[in-house]
């Protein structure tokens, strides 16, 4: 299960999960961590920061490269996963458990418009070949 059905995705390889309290949780996909290789450094946006959809808001550095993280939705950052500061390798070990940050979205319609698992899988497959 490299692209879970219950999540939404972006073409820039973030996954997005709707939480019961209305916030959304964001991380990077299995495909993204596989392309990056061993992750050694995660920088999250500060809690309280207001993000616009598509805005650069974080960095993941691997042994191979640095990747920008883009806000999948507009909204305010309500949490950041501090565990990744000391254990960035969790992004490789379980990318869907190793969440990066949470946003309270401004516009729920933005979430509905993100990619579903099948559409994202096509993008990931195309990059592998």
């Amino acid at each position, binding site marked *: 299960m490299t692209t879970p059905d219950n999540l939404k995705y972006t073409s820039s390889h973030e996954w997005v999960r709707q939480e019961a309290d209305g916030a959304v949780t964001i991380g990077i996909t299995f495909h993204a961590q596989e392309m990056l290789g061993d992750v*050694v450094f995660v920088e999250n946006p500060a809690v309280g920061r207001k993000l616009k959809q598509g805005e650069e808001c974080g960095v993941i550095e691997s042994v191979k490269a640095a990747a920008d993280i883009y806000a999948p939705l507009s909204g305010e950052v309500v949490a950041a996963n501090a565990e990744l500061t000391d254990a960035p390798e969790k992004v490789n070990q379980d990318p869907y458990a190793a969440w990066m940050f949470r946003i309270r979205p401004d516009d729920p319609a933005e979430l509905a418009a993100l990619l579903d698992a099948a559409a994202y899988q096509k993008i990931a497959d195309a990059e592998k070949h």
Partner: protein
Amino acid sequence: MGMSGTLRTTPLHAAHRAAGAKMVAFAGWEMPLHYGSQIEEHHQVRRDAGMFDVSHMLAIDLQGTGARGFLRTLLANDVAKLREPGAALYSCLLGFDGGVMDDLLVYFLGADRFRIVVNAGTSDKDIAWIVAQRTSGAGVDVAPRRDLAIIAVQGPCARKKAGRALPQARGSSERLHRFQAVAVGEMLVARTGYTGEDGFEIMLPAAHATELWNTLGLQGVTPVGLGARDTLRLEAGMNLYGQDMDEGVTPFECGLGWTVDLKSSRDFIGRAALARPAARQLIGLMLLERGVMRMHQAVRCDGGEGEITSGGFAPTLNRSIALARVPSTVAVGDGVEVNVRDKWLRARAVKPPFVRNGKILVHG
């Protein structure tokens, strides 16, 4: 050697595929980047033993009554130091302007026979250069050995485990000093490497490469890709040709002044150009903040500006380290700043190596 698309492949290509390697293009060759986790492979070499396919590198045999004299002109280090058969030496190959055309190991095989091992990306250029420098009547044959494979076995347990995999070479290889090699049948076993750990580099006929690879695997030597090879050599403070040096810098501008032998009066190629003092030097950097230094990032220091030539995350130190070309005025211990993704982060100048024989030698 086979071809995959436009990329060349080594005799171990099928073994890499079978081991699940992520293959990448490197200097015209399809080579393993890693077999799962680059960081795990790095630690394996620091703590136990790993094996590398470095068959993309080229062995070139130079043979004849003029071989020694020719190499004394061709190389910046002096092969006159190689007295006993099996002795090896690290040297730069310089152009007339003193620029580094390649770095290589030269082995004295005995009598009038020498072998050099050069980088994959420069091998064609090197052969053309060597042949062009050979004057008529030089008395030296130049024979590229693409029929050989090269396997490096590196790590604190490398020699012990390689000895078990190579019982026919065990006695003679156990007695080797560092930078010494021994011929065992068609094989050359050298106590050299590119990781800062003990171990061997083994040259052998391509047809026997897979058997040795698999036998080493049975002894618990695990495969290591180019990714970990790069972080291991960076921690060991060893230059990578094309990054830390090229034809635009002299050995004194890339930390390799110690390999240039100016003691003898021999007139080696590039010597005249080395008389002027170097304005730049290669130093080590340790990042004092979170982030990862990468090649080509700008360095700001007291004497002016510099550039990262190799940078990355060092698994043994759990922080970012780099090699950087900076003005000669920068001293070990100085604070500098590195532009990492548009932020100026603090780093300290250190003297490489960062790690040798599993031990951290520099401290933030």
